[in-house]
């Protein structure tokens, strides 16, 4: 890289780092997306949205620290994102939150698949479990039945 950061191909954790970048990108999306979710929900739901957003801010910071310690330039957030569907009601907002959490679960499952470091898999399994717990709560609010999934982050067989 031009700024002196390590070339991914030279790193023993290159594939893992690439997967962590995906998880970071998903965190950026979630942080942005929860702003939209919060705007479409009544004030009494604000604490829940803030808790979810804080969880992603914490994840983002952990990922930034991890990648930076490896001299890998972290991916930036995008200047903007396009919503996958209009968010016009609390149910829409819950459905968007489900999308955010499922995107995060997919990224973390990929981290587990690609990780070479045991500590990264410990990080990943905790992050994946937390994303699914949040997703279950939002699926309930979105009226989805059942609110659980057998294989969070993985495609159904």
């Amino acid at each position: 890289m031009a700024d002196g950061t390590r070339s991914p191909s030279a790193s023993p954790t290159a594939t893992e780092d690439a997967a962590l970048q995906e998880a970071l990108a998903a965190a950026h999306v979630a942080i942005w997306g929860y702003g939209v979710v919060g705007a479409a929900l009544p004030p009494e739901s604000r604490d829940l949205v803030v808790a979810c957003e804080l969880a992603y801010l914490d994840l983002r910071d952990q990922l930034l620290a991890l990648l930076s310690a490896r001299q890998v330039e972290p991916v930036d957030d995008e200047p903007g994102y396009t919503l996958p569907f209009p968010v016009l009601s609390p149910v829409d907002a819950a459905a968007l939150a489900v999308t955010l959490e499922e995107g995060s679960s997919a990224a973390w499952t990929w981290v587990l698949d690609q990780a070479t470091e045991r500590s990264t898999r410990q990080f990943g399994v905790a992050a994946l479990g937390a994303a699914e717990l949040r997703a279950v709560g939002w699926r309930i609010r979105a009226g989805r039945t059942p609110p659980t999934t057998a294989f969070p982050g993985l495609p159904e067989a």
Partner: protein
Amino acid sequence: MSGLLPAPPAAGAFTRRSLLLATLAGSALVATGCTGTPGDVTDAVTPAQVDQLAAQVRVQEAVVTAYDQALSTAPELAASLTPLAAQALAQLDRLRAAAPGDLGTTAAATSGVAAPTDPTEARAWLRGLVGTAAAAHAAACPEFTGGRAALLGSIAAGLRGQETVLA
């Protein structure tokens, strides 16, 4: 469209996630043992890992058995438990497929305590077993690599979700 798109003209996130899902489909095949090839380092398992995978299969068998017992003793829970039981069974199938070699056949054990007949107590009993299984799979996950780590982590997360709705 199933995900958030960066606003045009940026192209990053959706493309990455689309590729991610496509790649994960391949990963899932590895996890189910369909594409494992000799010499694939990420798919290799040590004898200790074979034993641990077998142990995780037993853990999941106990979950499936517990759902069967609860549905038998508290049939009024069928509407809420049947979908969860089906998920637990699907998890067991994929876990068995990911475990190399012959697992043999054993009688699946639960806690050794029969499921309560009271629906509230039965849910609480199940919740405890499901939570314990989730913790066991999560603890085992980092001991593996590749598709098996992803599968164990995913199943652990799925059971955590079930534990929540059983509350």
